[in-house]
């Protein structure tokens, strides 16, 4: 069993309620932070912990916090990003649904460190029942004196508000989220200025992911140095992985980042192997935006070394032979899955979610969807594959926000690693409608099928 810092109490009956959570040692970090630490020492501990943002980009949290501007007389805000809309990702939902007080506890400490008296949780609109759970937890915490005015007699005031979005993946991007919080369309802003200088209502703002803010609790309780001892290299602490697709045990797992991808997929402690005794074909290891990898490159790096479930190892080899840990949305495809169709559904998703501000993203995502649909339905031509490649290259790096890249990468990686499957679709317009390219890539070097 690996170390658990976030989900260790998830199975305690009643842990969702304040009384049980408190009895199990909850809110200790607030006492410690507000009574024994200064805002600067909290930021120092977070820096020492090596915590990297869990929303997908992996930016060091302590460093982000140290950038927040502190102009005299201007309120600052912490905003918790609970938009969670990257396909394959459902870890924040789990954390908020089962351990709402853990997030609230992390938010109080973080709000104190950043000087946010009004902190907002921006949650995707579809998570309506979780909004109710969070609001109840906030009411309980307030009744117990952890929120409101003059918390623990320290003079620090803090309130937490939950705002529901209304169905838009782009609002997970931090500047689109800020626009949405202001009651606007979710159009990302051009940076700079960065939110740390001018964020919500033009005030200094820090946006962090749910899991990042929950991780502040064990960091304060253990101390940054102890936290940093868990994991490996720059992948410190633990990470929540939401595993889905064709595996025996889909769900949310907390891992310390020293386990191999192989262990994660095949061990009974985690995914429990591929469903129905089938073979592993491919995997998108960090949410739909990151490059898909065929089984061989997933389990071992191009150098033939085992691949590990952490930031560095999953990106070993760059985009040529590697991928990314991203948001931790781990999507497993078995031998019966069609790469063309899977890529098509993702292209449709990005076209649907493009905010439409930049032409390469607005037009490019539409074209990629159309061409992929054409190939998928047996009407494709060889030149379409090159055209797809060309379009994705023209999107990448040419847009206001990273959604353009996020739309381009899955298409690029699918062609890079599975070009023969695309060609097979073009060459077999009828056969491809009734059967499947299958496992001609099959090269899992470890679990060689019988």
């Amino acid at each position, binding site marked *: 069993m690996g170390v658990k810092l976030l989900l260790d109490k998830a199975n305690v009956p009643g842990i969702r309620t304040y009384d049980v959570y408190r009895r199990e040692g909850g809110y200790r970090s607030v006492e410690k932070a507000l009574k024994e630490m200064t805002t600067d020492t909290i930021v120092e501990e977070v820096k020492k912990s090596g915590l990297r943002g869990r929303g997908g980009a992996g930016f060091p949290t302590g460093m982000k916090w140290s950038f927040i501007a502190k102009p005299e007389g201007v309120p600052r805000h912490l905003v918790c990003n609970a938009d969670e809309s990257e396909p394959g990702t459902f870890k924040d939902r789990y954390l908020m649904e089962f351990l709402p007080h853990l997030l609230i506890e992390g938010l109080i400490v973080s709000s104190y460190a950043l000087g946010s008296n009004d902190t907002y949780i921006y949650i995707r609109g579809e998570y309506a029942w979780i909004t109710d759970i969070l609001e109840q937890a906030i009411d309980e915490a307030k009744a117990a004196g952890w929120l409101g005015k003059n918390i623990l007699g320290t003079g620090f005031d803090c309130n937490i508000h939950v705002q529901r*979005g209304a*169905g838009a993946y782009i609002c997970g991007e931090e500047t689109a989220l800020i626009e949405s919080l202001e009651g606007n369309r979710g159009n990302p802003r051009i940076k700079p200025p960065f939110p740390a200088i001018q964020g919500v209502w033009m005030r200094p703002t820090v946006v962090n992911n749910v899991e990042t803010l929950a991780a502040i609790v064990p960091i304060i309780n253990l101390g940054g140095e102890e936290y940093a001892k868990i994991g490996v290299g720059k992948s410190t602490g633990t990470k929540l992985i939401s595993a889905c697709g064709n595996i025996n045990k889909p769900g949310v797992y907390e891992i310390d980042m020293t386990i191999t991808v192989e262990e994660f997929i095949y061990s009974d402690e985690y995914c429990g192997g591929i469903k129905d005794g089938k073979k592993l074909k491919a995997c998108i290891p960090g949410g739909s935006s990151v490059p898909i990898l065929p089984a061989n490159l997933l389990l071992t790096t191009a150098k033939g070394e085992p691949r590990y479930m952490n930031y560095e190892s999953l990106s070993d080899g760059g985009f040529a032979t590697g991928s990314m840990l991203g948001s931790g949305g781990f999507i497993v495809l078995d031998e019966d899955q069609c790469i063309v169709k899977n890529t098509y559904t*993702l292209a449709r998703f990005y076209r649907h979610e493009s905010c439409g501000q930049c032409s390469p993203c607005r037009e490019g995502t539409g074209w990629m969807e159309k061409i992929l649909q054409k190939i998928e339905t047996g009407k494709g031509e060889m030149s379409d594959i090159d055209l797809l490649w060309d379009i994705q290259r023209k999107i990448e790096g040419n847009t206001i926000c990273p959604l353009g890249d996020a739309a381009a990468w899955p298409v690029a990686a699918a062609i890079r690693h599975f070009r023969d499957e695309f060609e097979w679709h073009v060459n077999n317009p009828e056969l491809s409608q009734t059967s499947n390219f299958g496992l001609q890539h099959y090269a899992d070097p470890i679990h060689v099928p019988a």
Partner: protein
Amino acid sequence: MATIFNDTQMTEFKRLVARYPEGKQKSALLPALHLAQDSFGGWLSTETMDYVASLLTIEPIEVYEVATFYSMYNLKPVGKFVFEVCQTGPCMISGSDNIIDYLKKTLDIKPGETTKDGLFTLKLVECLGACGYAPMMQVGKIYKEHLTKEKVDSIIAEYKAQAANN
């Protein structure tokens, strides 16, 4: 139905606005539109949007802009129950196509349509954050997960019974 919040709805509206700084009441627009949609028949008519604009003292166009951007706001009347079935990659590889076909056949409608009795609307949506519990659909506030044909049958029966009891 008159487009005006009753007392409970107005109290909730005021709670929403109070969460934001003075003069930043426009920030309450998204939650206010959810409240309006829930209060006035499950969709946002021009009349409803204009009402929300007047309450927040913003221009109607600011409300239309937002209402058309976000996928959860219905700009046309919908059935009493909306089945929003996820069709994105992870759900697709877990069999969502079969569930969508089955719903089309059973309800005898295409995505975007409403059954003649006005009970059910079928909507295809993108990832709802339930990928590990696929196939799935959202009905109102609730997620229905691990769908099978049998489960779909019982869900339809459940909502029909609920409608008959009201």
